[in-house]
């Protein structure tokens, strides 16, 4: 007589969950997202092979090799300054995009927008503070990074050109900070920029012309605000990202981190 009752036990919740995970990880969509060898395909257990795969099969491979010199991991050598400069740039991009939602670059509206941002927008004051302090911190971090590189002689062959790019990046950082300084359109912004741009006007031959183009007139006004806004949120970030890409690429191509001393 045939058995009516199926004796195989019903799958437990854990087994069903495992089945779901397996079917998702086996699907074509999942396989198309994660490269062969990615730890998201088979899961991660600690082994030298998987340690390599974490970097090799992810976008991190653009920034880091699979292995680095042992002394490169010593935090006291680099103090993480280059990486922190990059991190601050990302932080400034994120907070800056948030601020753009609430800001109009017009002389009649800019100050009110900032004021409203601080008083009526949720987290508006906090995000603005983070953008401002992060910007000062980034100038400091880039400057300290440059000093660290110099004192370690890390600009010596084959890294000469990457040092040149680094100095350009320092200049771009200062320009980004300076163009952002005008945007709140308060007395501090206006007169700090006035002092800075007056100095620029003394450049021989083309100083006055450059000043005129940058200010959009003889004096700082509504046109200046619009120009510096575009420079601050589009032009300089675009340029600096290109130079950063070259900078990071050269770090790897020139043999990774310098040293040890």
């Amino acid at each position: 007589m045939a058995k009516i009752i199926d004796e195989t036990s019903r799958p437990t919740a854990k087994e069903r969950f495992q089945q779901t995970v397996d079917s998702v990880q086996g699907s074509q969509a999942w396989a198309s997202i994660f490269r062969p060898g990615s730890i998201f395909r088979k899961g991660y257990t600690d082994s030298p092979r998987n340690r390599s795969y974490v970097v090799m099969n992810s976008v991190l491979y653009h920034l880091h090799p699979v292995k680095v010199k042992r002394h490169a991991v010593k935090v006291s050598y680099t103090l993480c300054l280059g990486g922190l400069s990059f991190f601050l740039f990302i932080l400034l991009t994120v907070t800056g995009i948030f601020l753009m939602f609430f800001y109009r670059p017009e002389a009649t509206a800019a100050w009110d927008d900032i004021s409203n941002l601080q008083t009526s927008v949720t987290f508006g004051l906090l995000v603005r503070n983070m953008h401002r302090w992060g910007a000062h911190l980034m100038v400091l971090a880039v400057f300290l990074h440059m000093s660290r590189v110099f004192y370690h002689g890390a600009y010596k062959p084959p890294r000469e050109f990457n040092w040149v790019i680094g100095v350009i990046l320092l200049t771009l950082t200062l320009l980004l900070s300076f163009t952002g300084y005008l945007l709140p359109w308060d007395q501090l912004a206006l007169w700090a920029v006035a002092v800075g741009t007056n100095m620029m006007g003394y450049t021989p031959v083309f100083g006055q012309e450059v000043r005129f183009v940058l200010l959009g007139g003889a004096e700082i006004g509504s046109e200046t605000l619009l120009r510096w806004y575009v420079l601050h949120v589009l032009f300089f970030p675009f340029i600096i990202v290109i130079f950063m890409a070259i900078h990071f690429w050269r770090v790897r191509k020139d043999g990774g981190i310098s040293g040890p001393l």
Partner: protein
Amino acid sequence: MTEIPEHLLKRAQAAREKAAESSAEPAGETAAPAAEADSRIPAHLLERSKAARTKAAGGDDDAGGGVAVADKVAAAVATPAAGGGVPVGAGPGGHTQRLLTVVKSGSIQEVKAQPVDKVHTWPHLLAAEFVASLACLVFTFLFSIWVNAPLLQLANNNQTPNPSKAPWYFLGLQELLTMFHPMVAGVTIPGVGIIMLIFAPYIDKNPSNKPEDRKFATSLMTVHLMFWAVLVMIGSFFRGPGFNFTLPWRDGLFFEL
């Protein structure tokens, strides 16, 4: 006409002689040579082992003894082949390959890269980077909670604040303005500074990166950095109304970030 190298000519000559010999010899004259021809062991090695065995059997044996040994060897080689089991020329363990020589890597290749002590980027470097960026984020976050960014009154072109100061990183330049003509202070000095900075790796030809070997470069850079740091400090904290010298603990701070 190109000259054919001597060793090639010799080799060709030897090959020609060998071909003439083998064609002159009638095939299958005796069992032993046939077995020898079948064997995969090169002829000269067979010759050598023949000679060695002759020597071992008794130094002054006649040629007949030598031939007998050679026949034995040939038979020993030929028999398994006829049996069919083990391939011709198989060694004691049934191996068909032999170790001819060991070539040390250093003798044919030059090793240029010295092994470097390396660690995996994950987790060693990535963990450190993660902690560093998290600490940086926490610091910025907490500082932003406690300290607000300044927002003064609406910009007014007709009301100049006293003092008017540039952003802190340009205060060194503004400080120079009190001493030099604006073109020197605002263009020449910073221009020369930044050009020297850009060309530093091309000016500094010293290949060493050891601090004790680069005292001059280190001192020069320290003087340069201190020059700007001191100017920025003075411009930030020691300049009051009219950009005149002031003491922050006496007159208070005239500084906004």
